[in-house]
């Protein structure tokens, strides 16, 4: 066995992420669970009041393995200041690259849970504004 658990940086994201927590004002959010292992992620985003197409703040809550929780922290860090469009277009491979360690197919699901939650939150908001009253 290697003499480290995972990369130290990943463990920092896991157990001491500044992005773990809740926002006072939430513009979009989603919950996702990985039924195979019970990992849970609640992901929420506040938009920039001057530029509603841009993400101001992102936070997550949840419990699960190092990979699923660290990935949520990394994702929150990466998307703050980015546009919703950019966030929606993020590819799974980009997320895996940020996690930075090789993942088996089963562990990939852990690594992609937060990204799927974010995409679900963005899509839900888009559907809502399409269906809702204009303005």
């Amino acid at each position: 066995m290697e003499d480290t658990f995972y990369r130290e940086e990943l463990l920092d994201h896991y157990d001491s992420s500044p992005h773990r927590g809740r926002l006072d004002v939430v513009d979009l959010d989603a919950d996702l669970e990985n039924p195979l292992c019970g990992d849970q992620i609640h992901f929420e985003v506040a938009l920039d009041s001057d530029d509603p197409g841009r993400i101001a703040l992102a936070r997550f809550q949840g419990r699960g393995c190092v990979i699923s929780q660290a990935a949520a922290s990394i994702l929150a860090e990466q998307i703050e200041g980015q546009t919703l469009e950019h966030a929606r277009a993020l590819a799974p491979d980009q997320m895996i690259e940020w996690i930075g360690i090789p993942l088996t197919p089963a562990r990939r699901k852990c690594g992609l849970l937060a990204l799927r939650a974010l995409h679900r939150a963005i899509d839900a908001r888009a559907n809502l504004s399409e269906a809702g009253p204009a303005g």
Partner: protein
Amino acid sequence: MATVDSPLPRHDDLKADFPGLHQEIRPGVRLTYLDNAATTLKPWSVIRAVQAYDSDYPANVHRGIHALSERATEAYEAAREAVARFIGAAEAEEVIWTRGTTDAINLVAQSWGRTFLKEGDEIVLTDLEHHSNLIPWQMLAKEKGLTLRFAEVTDDGRLESEAVGRLLSDRTKIVAITAMSNVLGTVTPLEAIIGQAHDRGAVVVVDGAQGVAHRAIDVGKLGIDFLAFSGHKMCGPTGVGVLYGRREHLEAMPPAWGGGSMVTRVTREGAEWNDLPYKFEPGTPPIAQAIGLGAAIEYLSHFDPAAVMAHERHLMEHAHRLLEGTPGVRILGPGPEHKGGILSMDIEGVHPHDLATLLDREGVAIRAGQHCAMPLHQRFGLMASARASAYLYNSTEDFDRLADAIGKAIRLVRDRQSRRGR
């Protein structure tokens, strides 16, 4: 060396029968296979039986007049007879080939259940059930307006027959129960439960996915109405399983699926059903797999089921001794005297997935997650668990490696915590 004290005769030679055991999963890292509750490894005799069908007589069954088809049919039906003998069925016609345990339980729900159950009827299950012995009943309950009742397990994960008995009434039509928990290893008191259920006129469906492989189950002696199990959890191939049903039940049931070979006479308007077991086996069956399962049963027949159980208990006693004192390790479920060869754990500060990844680096294969038993994990307030499961080819040495690897994983977490504390 470490295995000379096994209650299984010739245990030291046994590993040679299983080619899957002898490999390095990465250069220099030997495999320690402890994921047998998910699927077992196959002995050479099974691998060769499947290959012999595919290479020497790859014909369809019950169709051709030619020699190869006759040979295939003979081997395929011999496998059915081997299954019948193995589980103590009165006749081979009571053995229906399915895709596996899940398929078999769904067949009971969709055929017997849909035919004989009506609104207000009750089905009694237990906290221990795998999703395969839960979801088919939930679906049926929703469709027919049935009530599901759940017998609770004790805090140490045992099932007392009174917990089931208390729920039984004249409304109970089915008691569906596992023979052995796939998470905790708990062996259930089938005999007492079946007696109580029959007193109330209920039919008993036994999920034998783990039980048939790990404990002796005789459907005749126990009076089981339906028994479902899978080939691949008992040294056989994937893709084949069995539904045993008592003849009177099977004869009363309509087919769940239609197609070729399950009929005797067909017109544009309708059809007459074939005899048992073919009524429930439309289409070309998993021939190679059924023959492979026959070979698996032939292999397992060399061992006394009581000795297999004693061997697993021996391994569990060893594993409990190794791990019970380890700080941070909580062993879930009952002690070795109440279970088969399954060791599930909750390790403080280490998510089961992370543990499985760390153990995999050492070549130790375990399962992490909820093992298709979410309600049971909810019962114990767990998000997930880590499960090491044994079969006849495992040795105490395998559990020594597991314990070493768990010790390392815990040390890594501790190191990390102390670095953070600095």
